[in-house]
């Protein structure tokens, strides 16, 4: 089915999008934290992917590729949002559990775009190191060392915050 999608077949492409729509939506929600924005992101990613789908060289990486362009899009959106909107998270009522998530998400937001992608693909999409390496176009060993370095950055973030684990 993936092979057909690369040849630009309408129905096959639709089927691929159906197959991956949950993963794509979850990705958008993880980054954008808003359903409306996630739906808009899905439309945009369908558009971009459908336009470009002939250029994918390796069908088995189609999912990772889709997730990757989704993350890129979300990261761009977040940068725009930073410039133009006020943070309204203070208006939400949150539980202690939520606070832990918010902290982690804030920590993740301090990482570079690539570090965020690596963490997201590895821990949220549970993608294989091999697939991540292909999608990022870097060697597998580099994926591993960058992930390792990123975990160290996260740890030092929490340590500097004074151990929010104990809240």
């Amino acid at each position: 089915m993936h092979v057909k999608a690369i040849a630009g077949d309408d129905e096959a492409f639709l089927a691929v999008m159906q197959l991956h729509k949950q993963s794509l939506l979850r990705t958008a929600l993880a980054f954008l934290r808003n359903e409306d924005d996630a739906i808009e992101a899905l439309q945009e990613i369908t558009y971009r992917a459908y336009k470009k789908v002939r250029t994918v060289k390796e069908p088995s990486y189609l999912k990772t590729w889709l997730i990757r362009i989704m993350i890129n899009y979300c990261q761009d959106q977040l940068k725009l949002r930073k410039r133009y909107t006020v943070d309204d998270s203070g208006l939400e009522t949150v539980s202690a559990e939520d606070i832990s998530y918010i902290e982690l998400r804030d920590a993740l937001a301090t990482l570079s775009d690539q570090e965020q992608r690596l963490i997201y693909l590895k821990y949220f999409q549970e993608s294989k190191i091999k697939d991540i390496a292909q999608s990022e176009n870097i060697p597998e060993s580099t994926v591993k060392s960058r992930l390792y370095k990123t975990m160290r950055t996260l740890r030092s973030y929490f340590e500097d915050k004074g151990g929010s684990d104990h809240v």
Partner: protein
Amino acid sequence: MYETEEARLKQLKEHLDQQSLPLSEADQAIRQGMERVRREKKQARKRRKRIFGSVAVVALLLLTFITSIRVSPVFAQAVASIPGLEKFVELIAMDKGLDAVIQNGYYQEIGVTQTIDDKTLTVDGVILDETGINIFYTIESKRSLKGLQVDYIHLKAEGIPEGSFSYGNIMDEEEIHTYKDRIDYQFGELYTSQNQSFDLSVAIKLKDQETVFSVPFTVLEQVKASEVYTIDKKVDIQGQQFTIEKVTVSPLRVGVKITIDPTNTMKILQFEDMRLEDEKGELWGSIRNGTTAFGGEDGKYTFFLQSNYFSQPKKLYLRINKVQALNVEEAFAEVNTETGEWLNQPNDQKIQLLQSNKHHAEFIMKNTDEEEFPFYFLGSVIDAKGEEVETPTTGKYGDEEATHWDLNFGRTDYANPLRLELFAYPNYLEGNIKIKIK
């Protein structure tokens, strides 16, 4: 090592996975995303025009072309064995005759280049015979050639007969540094001169900057002579008569010379399914991309078919089963380009005027069963004072609903209404004509 961090990430993942997803909105978003691409593609298709130019008043142009391309493995192999020819496959694959020219090594590599500023034009190769010349050329640049337009093309040679030519290609979106095209120059009469040296000028416009390339080249191999068969047979299709005079078989094309009986009550327009058939039932049809006929004076026409020059059949027949025709009084369109008003046209009114002014007119014909009417349908344009109005550039394109024809008039001081001769129209006479050629 980082178990705590990993555990926190895992927790967050599970939390996120529990979120309900707006799935029906998602389906709609996917559909909308795909629809946006389809709309854009449709728009892009509209812009794809092939430009036709005519240098001679005597030549009438009937053009037809299709867009789907099928390549046989044998042909693909022959193409692959000639360096540089591969990129032109899409421009030759629709014609069995050209296919055989390539397979029989009659395509001749030239490889002459000229560089002006950052642009280089290369004449890659040619096919020359007594009926015309096909020139395959490429323009390359380090900078983007997006938006490149071919302004005009001239071909000079000592003793070259006047003729008609077609050129223009769609640039590949992903290859913005290369423009490739085939110029199909068709001589108005057989060219039998010993001179095989040509001078090609190609003027292009890119971002308002004009570049004129001028490349001389010589074709080394001697031209293969045409084979001429005199037939002289009168035939009848639903009461309308015409005479098949002679058939000329050349490497690039086969010309069928026909004289139409002046006493016919209907004007015969196109021999849509005219074809050659050999003893094994193999067929050669009309030219799919280029000039399909010459003539018109005194009811004499030459129609062109794909060439079987290299196949050397034992027996050969000319076959016709349907002919486009209109009653004589309906066989022209009369229209006022300033008011958009029709004064005459075929009774079933299949052609509509979409928009017009003194400079330009755009006609459309609705597709039947999603089939595009593939013919360029308009011939000479005569104004109210009986003077010809030239149409230096014309274009044809199709979208999903209709076929469009664009006409640009050479001058605006003409008097309305304009009388446009119809060369093709979807109205048919049927019969079964089979004539022995050899």
